[in-house]
């Protein structure tokens, strides 16, 4: 199996990804890390060291809320969930991200086909 080349996260997208993962339902930090890795099939490298500061920052901004709950294995963990403000933010950011991707894709396509 050839190793898949890993990409660094573009600036500011970590927050967006975290919000998206949490939008699926309350989840703790470790699960977020694993989920991000799985979903991106290992393409996106999430530095775990920056995951928690990002979570805390989002919580302080009121986009996330957190509760201490027991996991299936019976351990106490901090579960994050989206607040209403967080959901709105996610929708807005996702939409603008989509626009950006479309635009970039368009430009790239144009550059390729536009030789003549």
């Amino acid at each position, binding site marked *: 199996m050839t190793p898949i080349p890993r990409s660094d996260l573009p600036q500011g997208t970590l927050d967006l990804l975290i919000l998206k993962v949490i939008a699926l339902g309350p989840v*703790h*930090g*470790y699960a977020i*890390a694993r989920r991000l890795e799985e979903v991106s099939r290992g393409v996106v490298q999430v*530095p*775990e*060291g*920056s995951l*928690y*500061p*990002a979570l*805390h*920052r989002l919580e*302080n901004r009121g986009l996330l809320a957190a509760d*201490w709950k027991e996991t299936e294995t019976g*351990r*106490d*963990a*901090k579960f994050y969930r989206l607040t209403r403000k967080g959901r709105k933010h996610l929708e807005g950011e996702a939409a603008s991200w989509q626009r950006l991707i479309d635009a970039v894709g368009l430009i790239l396509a144009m550059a390729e086909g536009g030789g003549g």
Partner: protein
Amino acid sequence: MTWWQRLWHRRKLDEELEKELQFHLNQYAAELTARGCDPQEARRQARLALGGLEQAKENCRDARGTGWFEDVAQDFQHAVRTFRREPRFALSAIFAIAVGVGATTMVFSVIYNGLLRPFPYKDAARLTTFSVHDLQGADVQGIGRGDRGGFTSAELLTFQQESRSFEDIIGFMSKDVSLSNNLGTQQVHAALVTPNTFQSLGVEPLLGRNIIPEDAKPGQPPVFAVNYKLWQQHFDADPKIVGTRFVVGGVPMTLIAIMPPRFQINPEGCDIWIPTIPNPSDAGISTNAAEPMHFWWPLGHLRPGLNPKAESADLNLVAQRLAKTFPKLYPPRFTMVTRPFVDVVIGNFRSMLYALAGAVGLLLLITCTSVANLLLARATTREREIAIRASIGASRGRLIRQLVLESFVLGSAGALLGCVFAYWGLKAFLLVLPGGLLPAEAVMSLNPVVLLFALGVTIVTASVCGALPAIHSTRDDLCSRLASGSKGVGGDVRGGKLRAALVMSEVALSIVLLIGAGLMTRTLFALTHVNLLFNPSHILVTQLSFPGGVSRTATEKKLFFEQVLQRVTASGGVIAAATTASLPPYGGPGSDVDVTGGSNAEQSRVQIDLCSAGLFRTVGIRLLRGRLLSQGEIASAQRVVVVDETLAHSFFGDRDPVGQKIRFKVFDLIPDAPHNTYFEVVGVVNSIKNRGLRDSPAPQAYLPYTTFGTPDGNVLVRTSGDPLLMAKTVQQAIQSVDRNVSLTETGSLQSYLQRFDYASPEFGVATFAAFAGIGLVLASVGIFGLLAYIVSIQTHEIGVRLALGARQSSILAMTLRKGMRLVVAGILLGVLGSHYLTRFLASQIWGVSSTDIFTFVVVVIVVMVVGILACLVPAYRAAKVDPLVALHYE
């Protein structure tokens, strides 16, 4: 959670963070172990993936956004700890800041409360008064009060109706009346005020109801309001007095309001206010001889956004119409001028306050400089600490922040102490402040605005003091500083140049303050040594006030004063006594004149005095030609006049004025004065100062006091002993003739001079000297400190010199020279600065040039001497260095 909640709960948050991260590590490690990894290796990998547990925690804490605060709190604790280790340094810095902040706050309080916000009235900043400015009168060197600020009822009503530049105009008029109820009668100063006054000024009474315009309507029961002080002193602050009936000046009236303490209006002060509708048929010149003239003083709110030009244009329009209706009341050429109400009271004292603000600004600069100097000195001894902190990773910003924070800690302590200083300083200030210079409504206090100002000054002071040394001591690279850990030998002392510059500025600033104080002292000396052209000592002055409503015709006056003067003169210890309408050296009323046999020069205005025969002897005025007024002429009110040599010279030149005639135009305006009458000149006397100490004598005419009836008069008594001892005798003599006459302002002529002329410069001397003294002390401490530091650093070098055979005296001289070089440079700078700065004092100094050589020389000598003394101790210490000890020292 808001950031301060996060700050408050940071312990709990830390625990949760620990738990959360541990959970993460456990899960990760468990997963790795499940995949077959060694448990220990699994934990290590989990930690590695997280980038280190502590690092992750730190990053999460940063995300809280409270880190800076925790850092500052840490720096704060550190600062307090270091200051407690060096109490001498900390205390001197705190004290210096306290002096600077305290003095500045005190002066600001006076300016804010006395000049900027003195009145408790609605929109007080727009309160403005106006007057008729005589354009010709002004050309005559301001003799005889060319401006008229009072208006007749008809004029006031016209201005109220027709002036467009004012939102409202109120008028007030002083009147002495008797106030009686069932408990007794007393004489009080009343102010008649137009009925709109209370609403216009927007002041609610302390007790009772506000006076409204309807209260003065005809048919309404007459009402009045009482001053807080009178209520306290004469009615024992009894609230039940409101609503009771009094007889005021013969009219039954109901007291309906007690006004709050700060309500005044009348700058001369008054006890009661009576709402009165101006009577338009009142020509302002009454047929009642007791009050030949009564004028309303106008005061109004200017419409916002007008300029003085527009205001006076509008008022001129009204006044020109009035001048046609009342031609006698207006000079041929005039213009209307407006003045802020506060200027009516403060006048020339405003510039004194500004001078004071300048002085205290300089003092603040000195204290800033000396605190910066102290901090710099400390920074030099702390170099290693700073270098070590930098080498273990403290950023320059962090270091500067810490040093600036230290000065803020000092600043806060200094500010607190400074407020205490300001509180007591304000009390002392009010003690030396002569009365009547600030509005009676003003209350000097440390109110929120003033405290906010103090806070601002402290922040500026602390930043200025702290930033300079902080930037300086974190300036260059680490290595050189760690390497040069041992104190410099011989070469340039680190921070020495900057400190020298600071000390030099301290000396220079002190020089400016000292020269200011010196010029004030010279002014005071010049004023107290003015030749009045008569001898003011041993003269008792009293002003007589006749009970209101009792009319005094010329005949009645004559009967009264003849007896009074006879009895006073008969008392032992009295050399002479007289009644006058004016008070030398301040003069009296003025009048335009016509003369026969002389040239009616442009200068047609003279000062007149209505006096008895004894005046010349009482004041000490000598006869030069002709004769004085005789008892007989005065008793029969002959149309004769004695003139002074200034009048003789300006109207008659070299010709003999005796036998010529003078007509005083002002008499035409006064009902029972002789109209269109010429007075024959019978004698010429020497001139005396008659318009204050500062100006040369104006033409003066002395007429019999029996020429017409005036309400009041002064009595002057020349005594052989202390005039004040005679006050009682004179009072008894006067009241034995008429019990109802009251004496006011009784005092020696010297005390009048003190109050009117010496008090203000004395105040200037006291405040400037205090500021300059503090400045000089701070500067000399600066010199001493710097030189002592230089000597301590050069101990080794001095030791070498002494070991090589240098004499102690040459070491002493060398060190002295080092210190004095700074002092002399500071002096030069200061003298140069003073040369430019003292011109701002010009309005406060008199009789001396603002660049007076004598003052400059004395100040330079004083500072030289103080400088030498400050250098002497460290220099002596340097000379006493033991070479053996010094060489072993390092």
